């Protein structure tokens, strides 16, 4: 019984953090499927959102519900712009030299953005006022934190919104079309520069949303992006790089895996277990769990 409770609580915690991984993973997979590039500086996009949100919040300096919403939107918007800037300024120009150069360029980009953030906001970090209740509530035998539930809920809503956008809107469909067959999409009069930029911005705003979702739970520092982004990347690859549902599953899976291995194996070897499992999964399914197919070969 006791174990069962622990198990459930571990899984819930894993799902909460996992849903954030999923958002970042989604960002990666969207960009890959649509634009065929990888943004290895996703962590900085992620980090920029809460900082901007904070600045806006302090500016408005009344902690009302509206100003929260506004600041969060501002943060997400800023993230999408940072992402776009990274794409136009670093990724697109390096992509024509090859994958290796994209990695290198993005590393440069993240160093740049991180240290600009240090210059502006200092390196000691800021606390993001929590707009979600952090008092644990008891549901049955389980202690659950509303904040975690909120994080899951909002992530789900965001994913839903993404689905509707891609499935129902004309431009969303165009983005999917371009993702499936660039040249023919061109023949339909769909301009690539449009769909590319749009894809990047949508993806980046997802990463930004992940940032502001975690901000109240974590402490906002210029380095907060690095870990989450690497987890998000792993999740995306695990789910099958470029596969949208795969990214979601991969994120949740990774979150739960980590928590369980920490809870039942050993907290010291938490990361190692996650790494090993990932290697084994990839050996079993070389293209990720939901193989996005040879066409999506990364």
């Amino acid at each position: 019984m006791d174990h069962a409770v622990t198990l459930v609580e571990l899984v819930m915690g894993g799902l909460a953090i996992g849903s954030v991984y999923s958002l970042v993973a989604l960002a990666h997979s969207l960009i890959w499927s649509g634009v065929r590039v990888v943004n290895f500086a996703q962590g900085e996009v992620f980090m920029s959102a809460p900082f901007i949100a904070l600045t806006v919040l302090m500016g408005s300096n009344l902690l009302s519900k509206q100003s929260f919403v506004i600041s969060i939107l501002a943060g997400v918007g800023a993230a999408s712009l940072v992402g776009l800037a990274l794409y136009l300024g670093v990724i697109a120009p390096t992509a024509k030299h090859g994958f290796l150069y994209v990695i290198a360029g993005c590393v440069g980009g993240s160093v740049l953005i991180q240290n600009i953030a240090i210059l502006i906001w200092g390196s000691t970090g800021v606390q993001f006022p929590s707009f979600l209740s952090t008092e644990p509530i008891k549901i049955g035998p389980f202690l659950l934190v509303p904040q975690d539930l909120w994080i899951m809920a909002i992530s789900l809503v965001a994913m839903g919104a993404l689905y509707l956008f891609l499935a129902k809107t004309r431009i969303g469909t165009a983005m999917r079309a371009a993702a499936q067959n660039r040249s023919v999409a061109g023949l339909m009069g769909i301009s690539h520069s449009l769909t590319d930029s749009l894809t990047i911005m949508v993806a980046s705003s997802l990463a930004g949303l992940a940032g502001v979702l975690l901000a109240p739970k974590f402490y906002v520092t210029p380095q907060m992006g690095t870990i989450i982004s690497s987890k998000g990347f792993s999740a995306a690859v695990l789910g099958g790089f470029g596969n949208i549902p795969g990214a979601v599953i991969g994120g949740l899976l990774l979150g739960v895996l980590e928590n369980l291995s920490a809870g039942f194996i050993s907290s010291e070897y938490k990361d190692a277990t996650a790494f090993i499992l990932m290697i084994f999964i990839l050996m079993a399914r070389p293209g990720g769990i939901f193989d996005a197919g040879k066409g999506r070969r990364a």
Partner: protein
Amino acid sequence: MLSVSSVTKKFGGLVALNNVDLKVEQGEIRGLIGPNGSGKTTLFNVITCYEQATSGSVSFRGRDVTGCAPYQISRAGVARTFQHIELFKGMTVLDNVLTAAQCHSKARLGGVTFGFPLVRREDARLKDIALQQLEFVGIAQYKEEPAHSLAYGLQRRLEIARALATQPALLLLDEPAAGMNPTEKQQLIQLIKRISESGITVIIIEHDMRVVSDLVDRTTVLDSGVKICEGTPAEVQNDAAVIAAYLGKDDLATKPTGAVSIAGVVGDSKGPFSPSPQPRTCALALKLINSFYGNVRVLKDISFSLQEGEFVAVIGANGAGKTTLLKTISGMLAPRSGHVTYLGEEITGMRSDRIVARGLVYVPEGRGIFPALTVLENLMMGAFLRKNRTEINHDLEKVFTIFPRLKERIRQAGGSLSGGEQQMLAIGRAVMSKPKVLLLDEPSMGLSPKLVVEVLSTVKSLHGAGQTILLVEQNAKAALSVAERGFVLEVGQLVLEGAAGEVLGDPSVKTAYLGG
């Protein structure tokens, strides 16, 4: 020497090879021909173990080699070249061949790094082999150049030299003459003859029948995965089945039924088969177009014009440059020289989405539908640039009446449709963008004769409705039976022009496909 016995290869539902047998004797030069998608290259891939046969077996020199790894096959003495040249572009010409020459020698880490005399001698020997091969194919003077800097024809030769450097007993050549000019082809023929004289058995896939008939002793013909004929080039060229496979079946000429009603729905006063309206203005005009792929000249001084409301078919064998022609017009490929004029406006080198916006719509070869989008979404993408919802819906209804089958599958993913339905979807999608001129690329490709009839008849009815159409087809009979005017394209040049009927009758058509 080589014996392929009842090999079948399936890709999902598609049967690429159906129970194919092939026996090649020591020292022979064997031709392997057939229209696009007939499974020639797949057969090569199965022989060289790049793909595992679904059933059947391959044995080489009496040894069963089914299920080996490709590198084992090549060490066993089967060398090959590739349809799309696969060189080590970054390497020098010499290193390309050298890498192949070391095929049979061990990689001794200590040896190569400390350069023991033994290894030195080995390396020297390999270098000699490599140089010999370069001499043999006649590109020794370029040995220090990086491979990618070579002219196209020379790259083909280099690929052959590389294959020879593995000292094979059997050499598989996949379209070695593609994109070569007549003189280059002559040299190639000589080269292959010398190779064969040196005791190497050769199997060659080639579309240019002149090359084939000059070279081979026997030819095997594949059509949609089935071996339909085998014999001397002369026999093959006059075999009814082969001619049908290339030029299409006669029954296509028979008028499709139900076309009238379709045309009626399309909402056009005059019946579909009434003579097309008197040429008013010139819809599309090409002037001395020259197009290149890399350094291969694919189109040579092409000039023709298309009147509004006209239905013109351009026919020609594989590699004649049909698709290149359409790509050049639709702006996917910028011509090296010449002009494309559309409704009086020069559109040469314009971006493709701009050209589409002007109503010049291209239905690409292989349909190019969006597999994960539903039928409806695919159609709506066609109307991407249009704003007026009511018009769009009206055209949607129109498409559904022309292609009722699409309406049934409206929510189905495009990828799940059959080949014919996909072709209809592609055409429907084009109609959705309200084209002034419609460019169709090989709509019959990979379709059963029955479907070819169905698809082309709908195309005809579209024309009946006043649609200006430029159709590019390999299936000459089918195309010419529906079009008004016809052009014959042969290795990048227009060799014949005239009313569809005349063209179809002209003997030079068969020559264009199967050689004299």
